[in-house]
């Protein structure tokens, strides 16, 4: 029989065993292909030039994340596959096959598995692209008629990326087989993975892991200015390393200690499942660490999406505080403007504000002179009352200012207080920052500061005064009606009127954020599913190895109930441990995000963790049932 035929035969006979692997590999291909399709098909062009560009950048970023994910996923799954195959095809060594030939056999089989997964993934991917795009658009709240187009490029890119990574790991497996000894190969499955390290090294790892994790949490939630971005990056790396070390050190030390404490071990079914966890220690801790990190990513991705979407809606709301805003140099222009607007639309509310434009003065620390807009405390209180805006701030002291800022889509600075501002050469202490849209859209263009009335009066002669007349009409959608007349007014008196703003409530300027939001939701689902399926796949393979052992136990007269209980415990542990550490870590990552976005995400955190919990519960129940079947504790019929 030729090698090719032998490989094909092996592949066919073990197809069922590798179904879980093939399906999950296929699933990753499907996801990646769908994202690539998004870029190369014209689905995003309906968002308009600017938005499509942003969205494409976003999808490309997600693609990079996905490539990283595929890399680790393939690394993991080919490793599991290799250990399993090593033992099975190791038998051929007794038939006179060289390591090289066995390696080739492995490569052929793996390529068949990988090829099948790729074909399945691409096939299913092409079939689901339209559905995917429809869901994405629906989730983004964008009305679009999506057609199916067959595009070759995304398929080629997906296949190339996948095959390149897959081949790399298959090659790694080949090298590993060629280098391994006969004994290694034949007993690959029997040897246990008891971690033979000194307890203090393991403890050291566990403590270092906890320490690094804690400092990761600290870095993530630390207040800061511009350096926050760097802190977050450091935090991400620290958390990943910390989680890995924690599992690497704590899991072996804890379980090996437990196994040594026979008084504890010989109770209930502990001796079975605790020993089982130790038996596959290396595989276990790597899987748990990976799943934990993946889930953490998923929760954070979801929270980012939500926070950005919420922020986007707030910004829209912020901008729509007023429908029209006119700037002028005289204090009584409303007598001209109000009747013009009222001719077309009833006015819901209107305000007027006096802005003192002032430069920072002679200050050596600034490289250029900034212009600030100053507002007086009493007029803002009055304005807030008219426009139904919140105003619970206390009047600043003579040397204090309050920054009147606007919402940023993604602001990284978490510490905005206690900054000094120089106005007309004198330093003022900034005590707070508020984001109420007192000046509506105008507030987005310049830095405004609130000072008390005395300071305002004192500084009045130093700068230039500008008046803004703000109107909100009852039907903002009808804003176009007064535009011509307002333009005629402003254009006719250029020395009195300096500007006009009209807000289109249906402005599609930042629609890409909605896409970003749904992509985040999608990433959340993908990562959660991936982590669930990684655990499931691991347990699926473990179960096959357990078949013999559970057979022995049954022969010895142990009721299936009892054995099932041990299985439930072992599996529950596999799901609960990574979940628990993820839940703890997610609190910190979400908290960091909360600080940056200046919003509360606790409920979202709880909801996303609850979704994962539900999904894991489902996976757990499925795993238990599958495990029992694969371990021969259930009649397969």
């Amino acid at each position, binding site marked *: 029989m030729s090698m090719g035929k032998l490989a094909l035969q092996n592949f066919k006979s073990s197809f069922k065993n590798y179904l879980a692997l093939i399906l999950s590999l296929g699933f990753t291909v499907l996801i990646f292909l769908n994202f690539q399709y998004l870029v190369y098909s014209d689905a995003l062009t309906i968002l308009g030039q600017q938005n499509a560009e942003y969205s494409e950048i976003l999808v490309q970023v997600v693609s990079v994340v996905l490539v990283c994910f595929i890399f680790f996923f393939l690394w993991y799954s080919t490793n599991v596959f290799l250990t399993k195959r090593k033992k099975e095809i190791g038998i051929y060594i007794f038939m006179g096959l060289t390591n090289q030939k066995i390696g080739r056999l492995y490569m052929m089989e793996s390529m068949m598995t990988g090829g099948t997964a790729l074909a399945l993934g691409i096939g299913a991917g092409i079939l689901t692209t339209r559905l995917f795009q429809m869901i994405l658009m629906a989730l983004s709240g964008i009305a679009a008629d999506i057609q199916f187009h067959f595009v070759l490029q995304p398929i080629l890119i997906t296949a190339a990326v996948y095959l390149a990574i897959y081949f790399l790991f298959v090659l790694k497996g080949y090298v590993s087989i060629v280098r391994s000894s006969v004994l290694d190969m034949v007993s690959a499955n029997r040897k*246990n993975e008891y971690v033979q390290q000194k307890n203090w090294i393991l403890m050291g790892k566990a403590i270092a892991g906890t320490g690094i994790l804690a400092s990761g949490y600290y870095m993530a939630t630390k207040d800061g200015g511009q350096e926050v971005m760097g802190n977050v990056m450091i935090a991400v790396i620290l958390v990943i390393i910390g989680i890995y070390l924690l599992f690497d050190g704590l899991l072996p030390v804890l379980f090996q200690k437990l196994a040594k404490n026979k008084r504890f071990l010989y*109770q209930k079914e502990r*001796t079975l499942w605790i*020993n089982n966890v130790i*038996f596959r220690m290396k595989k276990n801790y790597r899987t748990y660490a990976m799943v934990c990190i993946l889930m953490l990513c998923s929760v954070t991705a979801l929270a980012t999406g939500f926070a950005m979407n919420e922020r986007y809606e707030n910004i829209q709301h912020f901008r729509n505080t007023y429908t029209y805003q006119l700037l002028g140099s005289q204090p009584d222009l409303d007598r001209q403007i109000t009747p013009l607007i009222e001719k077309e639309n009833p006015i819901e509310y209107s305000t007027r504000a006096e802005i003192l434009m002032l430069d920072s003065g002679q200050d050596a620390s600034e490289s250029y002179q900034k212009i600030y807009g100053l507002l007086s405390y009493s007029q803002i209180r009055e304005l807030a009352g008219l426009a139904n805006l919140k105003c619970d701030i206390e009047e600043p002291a003579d040397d204090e200012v309050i920054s009147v800022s606007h919402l940023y889509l993604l602001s990284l600075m978490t510490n905005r207080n206690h900054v000094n501002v120089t106005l007309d050469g004198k330093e003022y202490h900034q005590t707070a920052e508020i984001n109420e849209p007192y000046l509506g859209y105008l507030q987005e263009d310049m830095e405004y500061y609130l000072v008390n009335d005395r300071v305002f009066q004192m500084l009045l002669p130093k700068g230039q005064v500008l008046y803004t007349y703000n109107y909100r009409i009852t039907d903002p959608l009808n804003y176009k009606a007064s535009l011509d007349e307002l333009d005629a007014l402003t254009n006719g008196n250029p020395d009195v009127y300096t500007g006009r703003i009209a807000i289109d409530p249906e402005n599609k300027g930042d629609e890409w954020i909605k896409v970003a939001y749904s992509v985040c939701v999608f990433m959340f689902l993908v990562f959660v599913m991936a982590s669930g399926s990684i655990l499931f796949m691991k347990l699926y393979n473990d179960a096959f190895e357990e078949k013999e052992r559970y057979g022995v136990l049954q*022969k010895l*007269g142990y009721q299936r109930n009892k054995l099932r209980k041990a299985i439930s415990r072992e599996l529950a542990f596999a799901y609960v441990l990574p979940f628990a550490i993820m839940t703890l870590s997610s609190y910190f990552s979400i908290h960091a995000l909360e600080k940056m976005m200046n919003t509360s995400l606790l409920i979202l955190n709880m909801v996303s963790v609850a979704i994962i919990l539900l999904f894991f519960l489902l996976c757990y129940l499925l795993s238990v049932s599958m495990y029992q079947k694969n371990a021969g504790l259930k009649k397969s019929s």
Partner: protein
Amino acid sequence: MSETKVAEIKNLVKDYGTRGFQTRVLKGIDLKINRNDFTAIMGPSGSGKTTLLNILSSIDKPTQGSVILDGKDITRISNRELSNLRRDKIGFIFQDYNLLDTMTLQDNIALPLSLNGVSSKICLEKTLELAETFGLTQHLKKYPYQLSGGQKQRGATCRALITDPEIIFADEPTGALDSKSSRDLLECLRLVNDQQKATILMVTHDAFCASYAKDVYILSDGKIQCRLSRGLTRKEFYDRIIDMQSSMGGDFS
């Protein structure tokens, strides 16, 4: 006391195959095992030894006849009761040891007791005691893959003994062992039979192995052909078994 009945088989018949194409493997076997017996069942390949042991140990069901173990007819009781019976009353020693390679030898030996909910203190004490008897104290912390065949089989024997079963079934216990390890194991079995009054039923094709028993039944063609009882020495008993084997012919290997 030694006449107390532990197991009794009456007119045991076992057929294999589908209706119309049946082969009768056991053709009416009667056997009685009393407390503190050390019985060996010998026979050539295909004589039905393993089938008999499987039925006795409740892994297989007979076509006809009854098997009474611990006062109950095991052909008529529920699966649940069977499991309990196997767990509490029977100890097994397999040809291929069947130790769990996920755990240390100590945990393997303690397994039956710990799963039965016996307090961990007693589990520990009994494990250490048995390990001492079988010369395994030094190897308790090792995993099965680190042990020799003989050590593994002695470990498996400890596991079978730890629950103080009514009867121990041993299926070719020396089948995978070299002669030195075989001797060690058989000596151990004899020791527990003599000192701890354990009842042992062993199936083997090896005359040397059988000669350690007190009684040997020779099974051939689905029937018990004869019974030999031990005389003065093991050597003399061994010679008689060999004589009987050669007079009967057949492939005993």
